[in-house]
């Protein structure tokens, strides 16, 4: 399940199906790509929700991101990707304390996954064969310090949704079952994708995502032709296609790496804070989570663009993705919340 592909596609002889379409070769869908990049710069922004039409490359983008992300340093063999030996949970027995580089984990949470598989459970094999009580880590452990991707998030079973919300909020997975009492860090960026036609998302879950983007099929013929041609070129000869796009993907990775240390030095002037507040008041969004996310996303964008401070232009760019999903639904407003944010933007932040 893990997308262990990573390392900017130097793919030798793996099957064609295992090749991952390069991130920078995705045509259009700028909002979706930007939202994913921003979380790569600052994971604290929270998750990304990608909602939209069928066949618009939602899953493709997330899987491509896995290959794009810079590597992390982790203790060899640690199931929760601990960065240093002293941070390895006590229930893990490791033979080595070597630090190795490994791809940023991007873990798929399939719809049919059982609770045991998500949170982890007693290791049946060891219990039966050796009579030992050992913990078998689940998907949440594997996703620590990386991404947890849920395709068709709106169809996920309710009890799993509750569980994920709880862990995403606390950053820790606590397992109390089968006579086990285990806890381990589980900090991950939740990426959900879905098709609104298949069903809506509960508001509690909606609010938990930092950013949300709507994707639609491109209407313009030339763009559509470009999409088909690139996809076709990729399907026919993945290796050549990947080699072709490698420089662009590497460039994006460099950008992410360069932006991360800049993050703490980006100024957020009072005018920017004022802008955030004014916009959220104009939209009547509940709570301050919207303002915080807006500022964080603006800062990540500034870092990505190597700007010294957060400007109004940055905020304007990220406002729709940071706020659109936090608005109360208005049945009479058929334009949708994205249009409402756009309207509020032109009124409050001209």
């Amino acid at each position, binding site marked *: 399940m893990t997308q262990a592909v990573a390392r900017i596609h130097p793919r030798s002889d793996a099957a064609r199906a295992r090749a991952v379409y390069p991130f920078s070769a995705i045509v259009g869908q700028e909002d979706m790509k930007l939202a994913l990049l921003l979380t790569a710069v600052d994971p604290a922004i929270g998750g990304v929700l990608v909602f939209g039409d069928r*066949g618009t490359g939602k899953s493709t983008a997330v899987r491509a991101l896995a290959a794009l992300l810079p590597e992390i340093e982790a203790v060899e063999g640690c199931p929760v990707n601990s960065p240093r030996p002293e941070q390895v949970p006590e229930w893990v027995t490791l033979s080595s304390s070597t630090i190795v580089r490994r791809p940023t984990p991007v873990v798929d949470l399939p719809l049919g996954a059982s609770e045991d598989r998500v949170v982890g459970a007693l290791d*049946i094999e060891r219990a039966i064969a050796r009579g030992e009580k050992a913990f078998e880590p689940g998907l949440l452990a594997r996703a620590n310090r990386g991404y947890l991707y849920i395709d068709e998030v709106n169809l996920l079973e309710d009890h799993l949704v509750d569980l994920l919300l709880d862990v995403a909020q606390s950053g820790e997975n606590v397992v109390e079952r089968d006579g086990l009492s285990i806890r381990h860090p589980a900090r991950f960026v939740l990426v959900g994708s879905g098709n609104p036609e298949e069903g809506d998302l509960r508001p509690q879950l909606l609010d938990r995502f930092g950013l949300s983007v709507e994707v639609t099929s491109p209407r313009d013929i*030339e763009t559509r032709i470009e999409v088909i041609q690139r996809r076709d070129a990729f399907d026919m000869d993945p290796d050549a296609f990947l080699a072709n796009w490698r420089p662009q993907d590497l460039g994006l990775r460099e950008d992410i790496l360069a932006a991360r240390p800049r993050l703490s030095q980006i100024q957020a002037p009072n005018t920017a804070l004022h802008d955030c507040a004014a916009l959220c008041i104009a939209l009547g969004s509940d709570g301050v989570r919207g303002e915080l996310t807006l500022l964080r996303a603006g800062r990540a964008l500034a870092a990505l663009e190597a700007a010294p401070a957060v400007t109004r232009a940055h905020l304007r760019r990220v406002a729709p993705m940071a706020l659109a999903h936090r608005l109360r639904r208005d049945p009479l407003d058929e334009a949708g919340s994205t249009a409402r944010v756009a309207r509020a933007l032109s009124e409050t932040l001209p």
Partner: protein
Amino acid sequence: MGSDATTTLLAVLAVDPVALGGLWLRSRSGSHRTRLTEALHRLSLPLPLVRLPAHAGDEALFGGLDIASTLGSGLPVSRPGLLDRPAILLLPMAERCDRALATRLAQALDRHHHAVIALDEAADESEGLPTALADRLALFLCPDGQDEVLILPDPELVAAARRRLPLVKVPHAAVRDLVAACDVLGIESLRAPMLALTTARILAALAGRDVVEPPDLAQAAEFALAHRAAPMPPTPEAEPPPAQPPPETGNDDAQRDGPEGTAADILVAAARAALPDEVLRQLDAGRLTRSGRGSTGTGAARAGNRHGRPLTPRRARPSAQARLDLVATLRSAAPWQGLRRDAWPHRAGQALLVAPSDLHVRRCKDHSDRVLIFAVDASGSAAVARLAEAKGAVEMLLAQAYSRRDHVALLTFRGTGADLLLPPSRSLVQARQRLRGLPGGGGTPLARGLELALDTATRARGRGMTPTIAVLTDGKCNIALDGRPDRELADAQSLQMARAIRNAGTSALVIDVGQRPNPRLAEIAVGMGARYIALPRVTAGRLAGVLESALER
């Protein structure tokens, strides 16, 4: 589609089913269908053909612990799921396939190790394949000839095409034509031209060519695009410019109006000719009902514990609402017996050592209660006689709803406002009383009525019911939301409200009780995503019959 075309289509499928996603086979049960299904088994497919059990659960798809072998060997033995091995999955009763299964299959298809052959028995025109699945299957076959001889493709030819396939080139113009054709046919998904391109490439390989040529594209349009097309509007003059793609889409290529424009036309014509309009309309109806708003009449399924087919059991304490699932509990306890015997010497006398964490409860698919919300126009324009018939019809339906244990709500709109006469209830007596006193006369505040209907529906949904709105009106709205008489504003607001109902995902039905069908009301019904039924000379019995059959679906 003739038998030659069917043979070619089967050949295309056999060459590279995984790249194509698979086949949607729509056919009523019958001898021809049986022959086709048998033919699939004899087709020289590159992967094994595996029949999925109807309503395959996660256990069947993803595998699990094999309890018998585990107990026998003392080692955990897991059983592989159907999705663990590359295969071509034969999905019976595809029209009844639920969203959960469709999504799981769609995700499996995205990993490119499987293909799906969906057998859609098309019992009802509003049924169809779930869109998540339909979008990913390249080919569509809807055999019409009952007695035609089915010729299987030559395995040698298929094998040769498979070898040639990686060499087949696609000219730039081919992609352009396919995309343009999709545009004209009203096909939005980008998977459609992609899959059509794959189909064309296989057709070229079958024909022994190294380059995709126009005949390949035309046939690919028949196989892979025809069934996705939006049905032609009933009046042909309503669609004058099919040849010209929208002008704003960069006409930098001077050749656009040249041979290429006509090439796309040929593809469109091929796709249009492949399927009768009637089939298209049925498919479209299926899509509409399928697309999220689930007006399937039985209420949205949710996990309950009383009725319906079983879901996977969950670890939980049994209670009055949740019954113990003995098998799942034993299954959970079985692997631990050896370990527990050592750990719990005080329980050595027990044959089976069960821990509280082993307990599983049974879960079943439940159907939530339906509530029918009648929004009845009691204005002066809906004449008294018709109103009386409407009352009669509602009363008859109430009786039926009562016997089916549906809830019923009744609201009327007249003058400047709307009143909820009967909140969702099962009380037939109460409903009759309220209905009898129904006053008539005054303006038609349709928007207000729809607003109240939506409000009632939303609240019912919040209580776990599945609402359906039935609007009975002549659609001559003339009172705006604020109570002022303003025909235009009232009209616009009604349409807005109708869209809000659609956006809320509430299924609806509009009965035009006016003397003449009102085209404006039909528009509002479209906005609402509702069925529009004009019943000019209405009688209570007929109205009840129509409502009944419309709500049944």
